[in-house]
């Protein structure tokens, strides 16, 4: 698994996609936080990064599928999947190696946004007037979000040899799992506690919960379960290849 992880991560960092991912994330969030008047916190006069965490899921919806779209689709297209599957590697090792590389790249994309944290920290009056605990929680939420999106993206990428299909399918699935249940729960058929259950099936509910700075076991279990399920299904797709 280690060698697959290393190969993938180095692959990202020696190609455009790695820097594009990091750059796009930083620039897009920078524009939203500081430049676009509708969302800029300079026009709010509140020292907070709430906007960042509000918008990040939407940016991830594009960014993460762009990172994961090639991971298995390209191996299929270049026929290198045959090479990997006939080496002494299990499908799980291949999937996990690639998955952790995608998560690591996402984390690298999140990292530079600490600049924004620092900026807002300095801008505050009095200086440092922002809720650092909540922000750490929010960053953790982002990381969880990225991990779950990466798992979904890996699954999408395993289904075809076409990267575009991998991208679109990943974006669609991430959208549905993140926001879909939330919207669904607003349907009038779901009332009372049913409403609540449907809501809890979606990522958004748990993302908000973690971002509030409350690290709760059920939320962590939710993230691990959903990511694990998509990764497991991805290994099944690879195994089915042998039939």
């Amino acid at each position, binding site marked *: 698994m280690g*060698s697959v992880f290393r190969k993938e991560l180095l692959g990202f960092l020696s190609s455009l996609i790695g820097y594009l991912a990091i750059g796009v994330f930083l620039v897009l969030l920078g524009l939203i936080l500081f430049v676009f008047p509708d969302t800029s916190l300079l026009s709010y006069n509140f020292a907070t990064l709430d906007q960042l965490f509000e918008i990040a899921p939407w940016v991830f919806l594009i960014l993460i599928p762009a990172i994961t779209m090639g991971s298995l689709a390209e191996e299929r297209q270049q026929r290198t999947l045959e090479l990997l599957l*006939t080496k002494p590697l299990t499908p799980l090792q291949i999937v996990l190696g690639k998955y952790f590389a995608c998560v690591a790249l996402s984390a690298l994309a999140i990292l530079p946004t600490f600049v924004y944290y620092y900026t807002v920290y300095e801008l505050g009056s009095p200086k440092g007037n922002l809720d650092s605990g909540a922000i750490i929680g929010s960053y953790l939420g982002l990381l969880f979000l990225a991990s779950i999106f990466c798992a979904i993206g890996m699954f999408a990428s395993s289904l075809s040899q076409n990267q575009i299909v991998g991208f679109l399918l990943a974006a669609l699935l991430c959208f549905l799992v993140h926001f879909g249940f939330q919207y669904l729960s607003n349907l009038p058929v779901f009332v009372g506690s049913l409403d609540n259950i449907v809501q809890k099936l979606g990522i958004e509910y748990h993302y908000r919960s973690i971002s509030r700075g409350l690290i709760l076991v059920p939320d962590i279990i939710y993230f691990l379960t959903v990511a694990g399920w998509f990764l497991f299904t991805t290994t099944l797709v690879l195994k089915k290849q042998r039939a």
Partner: protein
Amino acid sequence: MEIVLDKLSKTFGTQRAVDDVSFTAGVGITGFLGPNGAGKSTTMRMITGFLEPTSGSIQIDGKPAWPTNPEQRSMIGYLPEHNPLYTQMFIREYLGFIAGVHKLKQPKQAIERVVELVGLAPELGKQIGALSKGYRQRVGLAQALIHDPPILILDEPTSGLDPNQLSEIREVIRKMGESKVVLLSTHIMQEVQALCKRVLIINKGKLVADDPIERLQSRLAGEVIVHLNCQRSINASMINQIKGVERSVVNGNRARLSVNAKAEIRPILAQLCIDQNWGLLELRQEETSVEDAFQAITQQRITA
């Protein structure tokens, strides 16, 4: 060390791509010959753990290859058809990756050994995408050989190479055949003649021949071709009277005779030339190539 296939079959939908194939391959180079779509790659993919057999079994070193497992796969070096490679990687980086996948204890030495073996040194600093086809093929061989496996499965390793590259790659394969079980698929006949001690012929999924190379050649019963070249013009009707000559094309002082393989007419022909004072320059029987045997068998003029 042996690979044993027993009644191996693979079905895709309704198509039997490999149909009841059984053979045993030991140390040395076994040629696996067949026209496109015959089932060569599918058979190799089942041996290497990429495709699961629909029925039948494969034993590698006495243990079943399916369900596939990493230990069995690590005994095999595999060069898939079309030699898939990560073109954006550098040679050293790529071989390092493969060495890591095999968890080699001394990856540096393994890379050096294999670079030397396949002759990659001159291009070692390059990106794989920038290599010529011949060097890419060497990279493909290098990744298959890096863990010094006892078994080598090579799926059309020389297709698309120019004659120089061809002979260099063949030299590497020949060397490997001295100590390893090598299964080499090809549709190039000369390759089989140049490299293999034994030939398996597969057609439409079925094994139609499993012979030492000499026997295969002699199985091509029927006709041999004899060429005659003289100083003076040859009398066609005299030639045609020789027992065993089926047809002849006489063109002045040259003749090309189709002769029953069982009849040895060369001494008679030589005597005739002397008697008639044609001034014999050349009398030669064409070697029967595996190509002829192959065509004869796959077109089912001869059955196995």
